[in-house]
């Protein structure tokens, strides 16, 4: 589903974030990206949702070379990708319901579709009763659940999560992981960058370890470290 061919990414100032990386992610896979900060995890994800262009190499998404994507086609790529960030990125002036509805409004969805789909995803993450609350009145874990709802409401083929549990306590993190597992079992591909070694080690999913911009380990049913 996603393939990187000899991808190198240099940032201005000569910093090499990725160095000749080639990798393939299959449909429905659950992939952990691990490695120290600055190893290139975030850059790899940014290349997939086209926030960054590779300096060299190609990125293929669903059979399409997205390095050649025109600027006005980028929004349509991103609608196929749900994104979850460490800092949630919810809009503070909108309620939980409105935050999720917003992702649908952007795609031009009708009121009827929105009224049907939003309660459905809220039900799934267990926050149906908080639909009319504002994000600041929710706990961190709940906020992240809202942002996961927002990421899946448009039924994306891929979820990209950049340290989704980075700000949360272990119990809450495990709750979220079960949610991600649910989503994964419905056939959605998940790429997650994380430092939570206990989660990675216990989940027994594919683990890709980056260091210094290169892939140093790629194993099925891996653990956080050897």
């Amino acid at each position, binding site marked *: 589903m996603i393939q990187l061919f000899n991808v190198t990414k240099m940032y201005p100032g000569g910093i090499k974030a990725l160095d000749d990386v080639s990798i393939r992610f299959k449909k429905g896979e659950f992939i952990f990206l691990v490695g120290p900060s600055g190893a290139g995890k975030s850059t790899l994800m940014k290349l997939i949702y086209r*926030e960054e262009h590779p300096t060299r190499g190609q990125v293929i998404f669903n059979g399409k070379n997205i390095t050649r994507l025109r600027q006005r086609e980028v929004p349509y790529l*991103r609608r196929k990708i749900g994104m979850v960030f460490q800092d949630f*990125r919810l809009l503070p002036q909108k309620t939980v319901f409105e935050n999720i509805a*917003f*992702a649908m409004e952007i*795609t*031009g969805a009708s*009121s009827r579709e929105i009224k049907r789909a939003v309660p459905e995803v809220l039900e799934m993450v267990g926050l149906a009763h908080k639909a009319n609350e504002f994000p600041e009145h929710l706990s961190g874990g709940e906020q992240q659940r809202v942002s996961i709802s927002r990421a899946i409401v448009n039924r994306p083929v891929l979820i990209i999560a950049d340290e989704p549990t980075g700000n949360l306590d272990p119990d809450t993190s495990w709750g979220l992981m079960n949610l991600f597992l649910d989503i994964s079992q419905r056939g959605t591909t998940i790429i997650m960058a994380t430092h939570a070694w206990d989660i990675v080690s216990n989940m027994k999913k594919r683990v890709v370890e980056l260091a210094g911009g290169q892939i140093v380990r790629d194993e099925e049913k891996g653990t956080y470290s050897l």
Partner: protein
Amino acid sequence: MRLRTICYYFREALQSILRNSWLSVASIGVVAVSLLILGGSLLIVLNAGNVADNLESSVEVSIFLKDEATPEQIKEIENKLIGLSEVAQYVFVTKEKALEEMKQDFGEEKDILAGLEEKNPLPDTFRVKTHMVEQVAPLARQFEGLAQVDEVRYGQGVVEQLMALSHWVRIAGLTTMVLLGVAAVFLIATTIRLSVFARRREIEIMKFLGATNWFVRLPFLLEGMFLGLAGSFISVAAIYYGYFLIINSIQVSLPFVPMVSDRDLIILLMEGLLFLGLLIGAAGSMISVRRFLKV
């Protein structure tokens, strides 16, 4: 485009205007003042042109001939007039006909002129009209000092001054208009920039969620267009009522000054101003949003 999306655009634009209400008022004010001056200058130029046109069409050169001019000499002058390309039309008025016209002008008091038929003091005259008012003076000079010509007369000086004045008004008006227009665009740009800046995080999130550039841009565009339109509406209302107030009082006190009072033309002008306000607002917001769209 769905109704819900359209509602979203308008709701966002309105919220933004209310959130920065003072700056919004300032922007509307600057647009209003700019367009007020612009519209005012346009009306002055329009009227100056109208007055000039009126005078121009009534300007003619009168070539008075000497009494002793022979028919051959008169024919000679006529041939000269025929040969000049700047002559639009001419009439030859004999002294008898001139006296006839004068009697008509005097109307009931034409008796004063009785007896003048015997010894008519009026000269034979060529009345000449040129194509353009600028050609009047050079034409007059060509006939001055000819042997058979007694005198050449036209509205010396007046027309030239009026043309110069209208030219000057046009230039000064245009310069002011352009400067104020640019100022209005940039003030709106500043207003929009503030509201864009206040919502840059929201824009970033929108871009991550897959919003197209137009989806992000449209609320700001609407905001700018609303500010521009509101400003132009104020100026149009002021100009429209002010102008008809002025021409009404001029028509009473100075009835000989030909004012432009064609309502359709004025309304067309006002429509132009409204459209210009809209355009200024749109330009201002496009300038501001462009920078924030690269995520």
